[in-house]
């Protein structure tokens, strides 16, 4: 386990390094960011001063190493736009994105696991068909369209829910549904497939032979085994939601990292974009690692001996 963890750590570092290269190279496609920083009404002198101040006139590799060096110490530089440390900026906004991501994945799980379980328990029943419909619709529904439709119906036609802000949990209902629905199909399918497989297993028959109640058989004995791949998938989906949060946060005016990323791209706020890309990647790596740990906990064959 220790060796495995170390290996994972090395891979994670290599990935982070690669991503840092990509994000750095990517954003320097744009050429000289000094004009951007200076703003609409800045004159040439201001632009020159900025170029000097940020070191844009130095060779690219020098800028890269300087950046990586600082990044290793948790210093991603200063946002061109906000003029505050990018690290502060990201960590100030990360809770919203993570909160949204967690509630969305929770929504997806709460919706899809019971449905997936029931669909597998009663194949070709109404529940199964409902589950199938939900999942097929979920795959085909562009999230921004879904979000706008929700706003139109639940905030405009029937003003029941707030369409912007992140003050209370009520504000998170619509964003959660939109983002969570996006992850639902995959989780539901995998649950259903896994459950179908597990329900045919011998140990399920054993459990029933012990006279255990159907609920116990289904949830204790079957789900526990079927859920193992679902955990990995959920982690991956949570990672994907970081990307999905860009659209959702923009529409619902949630000031999270996804929206920050999008605005930073539009503002050419390179240090912020680079850092977010890197942070998102790291989160993904951490998530998959956590999922593995969780799997190890769920599956004693991995954990023990």
């Amino acid at each position, binding site marked *: 386990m220790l060796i495995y963890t170390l290996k994972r750590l090395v891979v994670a570092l290599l990935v982070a390094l690669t991503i840092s290269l990509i994000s750095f190279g990517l954003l320097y496609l744009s050429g000289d960011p000094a004009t951007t920083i200076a703003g609409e009404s800045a004159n040439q002198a201001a632009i020159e001063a900025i170029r000097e101040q940020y070191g844009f006139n130095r060779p690219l590799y020098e800028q890269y190493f300087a950046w990586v060096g600082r990044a290793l110490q948790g210093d991603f530089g200063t946002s061109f736009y906000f003029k505050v440390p990018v690290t502060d900026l990201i960590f100030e906004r990360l809770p919203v994105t993570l909160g949204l991501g967690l509630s969305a994945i929770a929504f997806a799980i709460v919706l899809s696991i019971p449905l997936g379980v029931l669909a597998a328990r009663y194949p070709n029943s109404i529940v199964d068909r409902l589950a199938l419909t939900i999942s097929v619709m979920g795959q085909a529904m562009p999230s921004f369209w879904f979000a706008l439709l929700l706003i139109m119906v639940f905030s405009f036609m029937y003003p029941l829910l707030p369409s912007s802000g992140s003050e209370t949990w009520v504000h998170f209902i619509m964003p959660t549904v939109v983002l969570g629905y996006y992850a639902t199909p995959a989780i539901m399918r995998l649950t259903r497939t896994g459950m179908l497989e597990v329900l045919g*297993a*011998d*140990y399920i*028959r*054993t*459990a*029933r*032979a*012990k*006279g*255990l*109640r*159907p609920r*116990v058989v289904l949830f204790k*004995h079957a789900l*526990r*085994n079927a859920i193992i791949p679902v955990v990995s998938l959920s982690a991956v989906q949570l990672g994907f939601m970081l990307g999905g949060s860009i659209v959702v946060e923009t529409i619902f005016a949630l000031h999270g990292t996804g929206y920050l990323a999008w605005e930073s791209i539009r503002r050419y706020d390179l240090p912020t974009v680079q850092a977010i890309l890197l942070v998102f990647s790291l989160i993904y790596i951490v998530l998959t690692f956590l999922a593995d740990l969780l799997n190890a906990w*769920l*599956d*004693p*064959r991995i954990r*023990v*001996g």
Partner: protein
Amino acid sequence: MAALLEVENLRVDIPLGAGDLHAVRGISFQVDRGETLCIVGESGCGKSLTSLSLMDLLPPKARRSADRLAFDGIDLAKVAPSAMSDIRGNRMAMIFQEPMTSLNPAYTIGNQLEEALLRHRNVSGREARERAVHLLEKVGITGAASRLGQYPHQLSGGLRQRVMIAMALMCGPELILADEPTTALDVTIQAQILHLMIELQKEFGMGMILITHDLGIVARVADKVAVMYAGQIVESGTVNEVFENPMHPYTQGLLRCIPVPGKTRRGEPLGSIPGIVPSLIGEMKGCAFANRCPYTFEACLTTDVPLFETGSNPNAGRGYRCLLSEQQCIENAKEVA
């Protein structure tokens, strides 16, 4: 007093696209406390489905029907699913063929042992634990207490089957159904396990249905034998009667396939039954064994054969399903011997 388990005209049908598969076609038998019934037959004859149908563990598609299916006077055909699950694992327990896959990989041995007792008895966790340790010792597992925390994948096949047996015994059942409990195990371990089961059965005075295709086992442990072929019992009786005087050509064929110490001479080829089992899909006309039977005559192909009762003791359930005269059967049996 009625027998512990009474089964009359039990049928199991599985609907398929091409028509119903009649897997078990009207079988009847009884098992009493302290008695061991062996159901013998080759693969696919319906013996496993018979045991599953008794436990109400058939696959979802399969349908069960019976004229009488009574456990200690309780009509299992009419009992509600929840009441059935109260009986299952409690008064009737089952041991399966595949010890490698029959334990849930995600839970410890202890957990899986204890949950049966916790489900059916109002006991504390500690009591359940003690019972589990006790039974693990009983089935010959050393260091029982420490085993409780182990997971199935950490145990060998023989150990797992012992665990399965212990699990079946947790609630002190009155009837044990063992479906080929030793097939998947090493030969050396087979004997140990079998031995263990018989011992326990005697000790606890349980009724036992042992399903096997191994006549050697039958000879050693059975009180009564039911020979199944193509979903029917073709011959039944006490183990002595059946082994001494096999009436049905199929039984005779089976017995010819095993070496009998003292009777089978060294170097003599063992018998085999040529041909294949008929399809069980759709209605079947005549004797199911007709296509493989050396004595087949015209009536065998057209007449449905009833189970003829015979033997000195009508309660012993001695019967056979053959159109040949009793005399003829006895003649044929002598050839086997």
